[in-house]
């Protein structure tokens, strides 16, 4: 089964992960821009980070036969840092036009502050200006309130819900989002957020329309194989193959195809790992 992983911070993962992901059927991965664990202190760090995920990381993924795309934004946590927020917002118009950028994200709420609200609204406007969908992070704390505020701001700026993916949903938030027209993301984590059995239950309860799942793998305790592992459980629980494929392929691909920049033929073409990135290869030892 082909899998599109719509949320993984691959910059923080090792090459073994790419190899395992490719073996498990993942052919495309989307890397949303986020914070780095260690807070940044200058806009220049964002420049290098954006350059890395549109350049080197894409190349690295291709070495393992995986197509790599990204969304770019000022993340909610660092939207609160006045050393960064305005400067990063000013960088974005140029970066949002780069190849392989399929959306604006992750944007949204962390502590639900006035600054976070302001930069969420401003970045929804950027998404509109660049004709891109938006990937919205929902907070770890006070999640329900965060989802409500997100939906309210979308209405305020009149951003079309069918171009929004609201991520990291739980049983509590599904009822809020299900009728809005937004795509709903679920991050399957080893311990927190959402696990495989709960996920299968949600899909059985609410159906598979506009539902996507991801690993949200990053530098924390996370597992980039959570999508294939959830697929296993979906099968064991008797979900039809076409329903599974809808959740792990058609839904995420058709959502990001709204950017107009996801070349489906390219996605179906095997990647040739023979190229070099700026003359470098990550393959060690003599090459054929």
């Amino acid at each position: 089964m082909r899998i599109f992983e719509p949320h993984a911070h691959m910059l923080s993962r090792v090459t073994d992960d790419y190899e395992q992901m490719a073996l498990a059927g993942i052919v495309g991965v989307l890397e949303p821009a986020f914070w780095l664990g260690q807070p940044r202190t200058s806009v220049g760090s964002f420049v290098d980070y954006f350059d890395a995920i549109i350049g080197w990381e894409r190349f690295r993924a291709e070495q393992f036969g995986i197509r790599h795309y990204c969304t770019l934004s000022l993340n909610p946590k660092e939207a609160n840092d006045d050393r960064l927020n305005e400067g990063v917002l000013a960088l974005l118009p140029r970066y949002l036009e780069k190849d392989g950028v399929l959306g604006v994200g992750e944007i949204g709420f962390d502590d639900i502050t006035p600054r976070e609200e302001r930069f969420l609204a401003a970045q929804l406007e950027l998404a509109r200006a660049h004709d891109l969908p938006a990937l919205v992070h929902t907070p770890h704390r006070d999640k329900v309130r965060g989802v409500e505020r997100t939906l309210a701001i979308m209405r305020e700026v009149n951003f079309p819900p069918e171009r929004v993916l609201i991520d990291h949903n739980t049983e509590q938030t599904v009822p809020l989002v299900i009728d809005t027209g937004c795509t709903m993301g679920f991050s399957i984590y080893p311990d927190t957020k959402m696990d495989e059995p709960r996920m299968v239950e949600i899909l059985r309860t609410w159906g598979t329309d506009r539902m996507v799942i991801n690993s949200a793998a990053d530098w924390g305790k996370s597992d980039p194989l959570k999508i294939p592992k959830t697929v296993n459980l979906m099968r064991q629980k008797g979900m039809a193959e076409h329903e599974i494929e809808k959740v792990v392929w058609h839904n995420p691909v058709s959502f990001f195809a709204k950017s107009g920049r996801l070349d489906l033929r390219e996605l179906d073409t095997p990647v040739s790992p023979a190229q070099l990135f700026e003359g470098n290869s990550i393959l060690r030892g003599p090459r054929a």
Partner: protein
Amino acid sequence: MTVATPRSLFDHALEKAIDTPGATGAAVYLKDPERAVLLLAAALGQRAASGAPWPGEIAWANGAATAEPLTEVETDQTTLTVPLLLGEDEIGAVVVSARARVSSGVDTEALSRQCRTLVRALAPEPLAALRDELARRIPPPAREWLETGIAAAARGEPEAILTAFPAMGRRIGREPLGSRSALVPRDADIEVPLRAWRLDDAGRVTLLCAFAGDAEALAREIYFAGDLRERCGALRGLAVLGRTPGAIDAVRDAVRSSAVELFEAALADNPYACRFLPDDEFRHAVLKAAFVGVSIARLPGVEARADGELSRMLLSYVTEREVAGRSVPPDIWPVAALHPTPGLAGKLCGYLEHPAEAHRAAAAQGLRRIGDPRTHPFLDDRLARENDPTVRRLLERALA
């Protein structure tokens, strides 16, 4: 420099052409945009044979049977036809008529050079030329999008260019442009060949050409904020628009890079880099071109800037490759031969026997430049067995 009218340009070229020994007259013919014929644009003096007027149109090439345009000077008894080439694109020809058979002693290279100057003076402005190239190759929606960008650039809005640059490949395509022509920067007797350009390169440079502001500074800014393709576009923009060394740090960055695509855009067919890099950096750039497989013949001005130190570096590289049992690029020979190192003539005599035509041709060119009569027996020996017509011609020239 004042812009000359086409008429005086023609007259100047024709006066030079008519200086050819035995010439009675000369005429300029230019390509008809609609049909595969050449139309009379200007004439001076008489056609020798009958004194009859110059025909209003002639077929491509001398033999009417073939529609193949000329790429080399051709002599046909009493006429000498010099192609007018813009890049590798034939835009016309200068025909020189003589009373008797045109002697083989005519300096056709000087005539070709004068004709190049005529072509460059006739060439359209880069913006118009690129618009025309693209109009024939991209669909109407892409053209409209680009025209919107051109209009914003002409209003002096750098932001429009900055956001259009990364989107260019998606908007108008990334395929090779497929042009044989060249751009001629304003008020300059140089050419920027388009042979290696892609559609997105042409689109990006179009916007820079249209910009009502400091395009050189903008190209530099874009270079340092761009991805690989944007950087290539910025460097190709500098090839056409660069007037000062102000953006040379972008070229330096590209020359340091190991990305061949970027290195090539910085140097190959790029007069900006080759004009403003200091001597020592230029020599290293030439050496790196040979090393990464970019033909050093594509570096504009490489012959004018070649010196003994460059020859030494190139030959040292050749030795290193030969010791390792590896091949060397043939275009090194004509450049190294401009300032020959001891033993180079002997080495080139050896390369006259190389199985690859390109090496034999380049060795013959090099030996012609060295002009050492001791090499003649080897040139004669090879000529007696040489089957390739290009190599034969070069061997004959080296012996002349």
